[in-house]
């Protein structure tokens, strides 16, 4: 169940500058747990104290914003790309 995780610039200090890393897990929650094991501390940047995705972080599994899917329980099929992106305003 290998997946790829795109890391935003702001979190690349945890991944030694890597923009993309490989991950493991059947759900987003499992992928993030493994990510934090590989790169200690990165999990707390993505999830808040209550374990929810921080409100200014958007996470996509493939093309889908996980808030439209099952949040942390969103399935992460093998080969899918996960993107972690800071929320930004627009216009």
């Amino acid at each position, binding site marked *: 169940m290998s997946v790829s995780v795109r890391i935003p610039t702001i979190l690349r200090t945890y991944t030694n500058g890597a923009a993309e890393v490989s991950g493991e897990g059947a759900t987003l929650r499992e992928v993030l747990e493994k990510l934090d094991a590989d790169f200690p501390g990165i999990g707390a940047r993505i999830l808040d104290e209550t374990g929810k995705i921080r409100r*200014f972080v958007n996470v996509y599994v493939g093309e889908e914003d996980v*808030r439209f899917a099952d949040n942390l329980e969103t399935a992460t099929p093998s080969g899918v790309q996960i993107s972690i992106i800071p929320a*930004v305003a627009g*216009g």
Partner: protein
Amino acid sequence: MALASTETTTTSLDFGPAVALSCRECGARSPLGPDFACTECFGPLEIAYEFPRVTREQIAAGPANIWRYRALLPVPADVTAKRNMAPGWTKLVKADNLARELGLRSLHVKDDSGNPTHSFKDRVVAIAVEAARNFGFHTLSCSSTGNLAGAVTAAAARAGLDACVFIPSDLEQAKIVMASVYGGRLVAIDGSYDDVNRFCSELIGDELGDRWGFVNVNLRPYYAEGSKTLAYEIAEQLGWRLPEQIIVPVASGSQLTKIDKGFKELVTLGLVEDRPYKIFAAQAEGCSPVSAAYKAGHDVIRPVKPDTIAKSLAIGNPADGPYVLDIARRTGGAVEDVTDAEIVDAIRLLARTEGVFAETAGGVTVGVLRKLVAEGRLDPDAETVVLNTGEGLKTLDAVADHARPTAVIRPSLDAFRAALA
């Protein structure tokens, strides 16, 4: 603290009264740089200032554009000498006819269609251009629902920068033309605005986007400050007084948040009397994630997939939405939405009563104004301002079915007489 993507140092920067970036969520400070998210908590970064003493007279002696407020903005003191669009100082129209029709004592329309590219976006882009110059960026970029793309390409042309802007491919024809006529590259993406925004967020971390200033991403803290000038102008044009009620459109929520910040700064600086004001937020029903959260009593936003004619407000995942909720609740305002039919009706109402042809976003604010009045949620005796942030000519399709010749006749008096009958 902040992870700047360039080697820029703060020593060579000139941002006038701005002194640092500050996280709106956790308060962590970092040096002024091309950064938009807090390294601690991902919260949005804002500009922190040390304002000089500023008087009404100094401001009034300034130019008839946003640079009259340059002492309150993150720009160098000599910004007036630089090549930029010099936007702002748009009309505050005393809307007596519309007030009478709605049963209000005092109503003004802040008509920002009078800006150089015909939307309020020229205000925010002008600040972003100065930030791009400061950071030595060569290309100006953005994700846009249309108005911003035109404002960016025009400002880049004036400033002598390259431009590459990104829009959803289903935009109104007029906005596509506006965004491309000024030169630079216009890239249409098959997807919604939120898809475009996501794309830009990824591009910014890639070498393809190196040395690019994305006005609403990595220059966002600077860019967003431009919306404060709406608050400054409204207060100055009312005779240095805060309005008691104001209706503001909400897409990302940034503009509303900065109008509140602008009012508060005017009070802090002693430029206006401290009197309560209520901020009302307006959305289209087909993209109303903030309104839905407000009505449900929530303080987080559930993103939606937009489906509305108000494309300039079609942001389904509004980054500043939580702050809009906070401000509406704190000031005693509200968040409300109107249907596409109500938007069209409101565009026609404003045009018919005041001679102001608003784009769909203006139909949203006027429509919400009318709805709030009808439901008794606005004080009809309070001094009220409603924003029109864009030009009706850019969204002609919205009203085209309702705006046709009254009659088509031969050029004869008899034919005209018959048509009048």
